[in-house]
């Protein structure tokens, strides 16, 4: 059990296997047109070909193209040919194999089969791996975007002197209590400082146009960010689905506010 937990620290095949994947196979006597129709309908690029439980190979757009190129003469009706004439072999991986070890296979063949020849459990494609690694990396990317977007909206809302007034009103006492230097510019401030400045009803009117809504809605959106940031950057735990969604929604909201602010700025410049 301990060993399994340690292995979970690394990126394994099971983590990249889409949870909703339902395996679709065709038998060896299925026709090319039938398999292509199935692939089109399911929006997939390859389909395993089986005889009973045994995997014979994989039929794909590439295997079809290669097979056709090798045929001595082009048949009149390609669609009626059996798929077994156009099979390719894909590598088999175990559900607990390391994903990074399969990157070359995914680069060359676009997909890897999961399970055994006599018991297929799933397929991982290059896009599945890409999505997985994006999922792992995206909290860091999102947090960077969120923090920089808040900073930019704050910058557009107040002059440096007005920012100092807001700092004095909201977070100065906190810093003085800790005998720490009071920040004087946005770059010196932490994400937590940004949230406290925005939350204060005395300073809020200066930021209302940039952030929209009310001080309460803005605070409800931002209040958990400093803690989430610490959890992520100190690798304490993975974000829950709920937390991740919240982070993404906050990022989308800020992107919209930035666009609005830019549009207003352009209109002012033009006017």
């Amino acid at each position, binding site marked *: 059990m301990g060993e399994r937990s340690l292995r979970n620290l690394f990126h394994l095949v099971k983590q990249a296997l889409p*949870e909703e*994947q339902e395996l679709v196979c065709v038998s060896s006597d299925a026709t090319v047109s039938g398999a292509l129709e199935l692939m089109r309908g399911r929006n997939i690029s390859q389909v395993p070909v089986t005889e009973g439980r045994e995997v014979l190979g994989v039929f794909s757009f590439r295997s079809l193209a290669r097979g056709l190129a090798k045929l001595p003469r082009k048949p009149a009706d390609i669609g009626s040919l059996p798929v077994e004439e156009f099979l390719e072999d894909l590598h088999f991986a175990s559900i607990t194999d390391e994903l990074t070890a399969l990157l070359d296979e995914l680069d060359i063949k676009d997909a890897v089969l999961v399970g055994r020849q*006599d*018991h297929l459990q799933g397929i991982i494609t290059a896009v599945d791996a890409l999505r997985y690694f994006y999922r792992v990396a995206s909290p860091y990317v999102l947090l960077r975007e969120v923090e920089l977007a808040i900073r930019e909206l704050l910058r557009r809302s107040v002059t440096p002197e007005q920012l100092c007034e807001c700092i004095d009103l909201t977070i100065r006492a906190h810093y003085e209590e800790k005998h720490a230097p009071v920040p004087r510019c946005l770059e010196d401030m932490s994400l937590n400082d940004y949230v406290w400045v925005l939350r204060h009803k005395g300073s809020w009117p200066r930021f209302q146009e940039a952030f929209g*809504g009310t001080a*309460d809605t803005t605070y*409800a959106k931002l209040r958990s960010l400093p803690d989430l940031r610490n959890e992520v950057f100190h690798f304490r735990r993975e974000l829950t689905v709920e937390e991740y969604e919240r982070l993404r929604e906050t990022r989308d909201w800020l992107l919209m*506010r930035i666009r609005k602010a830019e549009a207003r700025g352009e209109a002012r410049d033009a006017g």
Partner: protein
Amino acid sequence: MPAESALEAFRSQGLAPFHARFASDFVAAGSPAYWELVAPAGTGTTSLARAIVERLVRTGARRVLVLAPGTLLRRWQRALVPTTGQPSPLVVDRRSFLELEAAAGPGRSPWPDPAVIVMGLDLARRADMAGPLADTDWDLVVIDQSHLLTGQRRSVVEQLLAGSRAQRALLMTATPGDPLPGVTRRVGTREGLVDWSGHPLFREVSPAAAAVDYCRTDGETAFLRALEGLSRELALQTAGRLQGLLLRRAASSSFFAAETLLRRLLETWRPIRNRLAHGVSVTADDFRASLELIDSELDEADPLDLPERVDVDPGRIEALCARLDELVEKIGDIEGDSKLEALTRFLAELRRRQPPARVCVWTSFISTVRYLSASLGRLDEPVVALTSAVDREAGRRLVEEWLGKGGVLITTEVAADDDLVAAALDHVDVCISYDLPASLGHLQDRVGRFQRASRAADVTIAWLRDTSRSFAWEEDLLGTMAGWLPPTR
């Protein structure tokens, strides 16, 4: 074991008479193998199931399968943590199942022995799970929310029962649907539940007594009208009807919840729109994922019964995405929140009471809990917020803190299903229903939780009333609750 001693054993585990008798009959030799228990939510059915599982495992059961909606799996896992050396419950998703299968090796059952498996109803209904479930002998199958057994979910369970792969089955629901063949049904009502001295466990549920008035502003009304229009358009497709309903419920709860749902819809529809634009087909599963994502915001024990087939009109998606974008923009232009202001004023009045009132604010939406806890955090009194996302132990600490210090407890239905939270509701002086429940039945259930016989003092049930009557959907819903909420002025 004779029936009397089984009854005593279940009684000693804290079960009320109705539940103990049911459990005793369920485990009795020669009793029917398959039962459905119909009982109101929050009356202890999870504890009953736990007692039955414990007893059967202690007397030799090797494999137990618990099927429940995805949102309730963690709750079941927590409820079934064993007190003695029984197997710990294992929540199985698709990935962990594949891991079990690979570890078991060729030709062997993937299920550990002994095992208590907790699995989502929607995973069990998948075609590739039917074999592994039906190829195993289960000593007990427990199905929570059995009214959700329709379509493929129903077929899977029928297969388990008809093939006798399940030795015993316990189905549970508060709102029974068509009975399954061969299943014995027993019905318990809230009024009929008594303690071991014969006293009722619940008081007669009485209507809400107080209304907190507010008047939506022109900006708020304009947004709600636009949202109504979108909801009507959404209703033209199957999944859209549910999405439209959820949007209206969210907007009725708080604009913050509405914004969260609108963003989630946009986020899930954009890839669908892009795929359609590139001529790639879109499946029902793509829309199911969208529904599941917005349903996860609703913190109710009874999840949405998502349709297995989704009719989609691809031509409308582009236009609907544009409308969603517009609405998300509009919501940022609403200044102020008249409903929140009314709540804040009411809470200030309650704080002036001597001693200050213990208040519970009840909502169905996780995002409304977030919004209220952020906003009410400005008040000079403790605010405790509970949702299903809060870890059980942390939640219990918060409730104990609230019982000690008083203040405002913000909770949802799922969070209040925890027995400690349920008992804490006995100490609430004023319950404020921040949003409207989905139906009269839900309203009665909500009110009933505060009117248990174990409560020492009276409780005031209050609700937020919009005197502008500007949200047509809300007014229609209120019509169905006539007599249970004070009439609108």
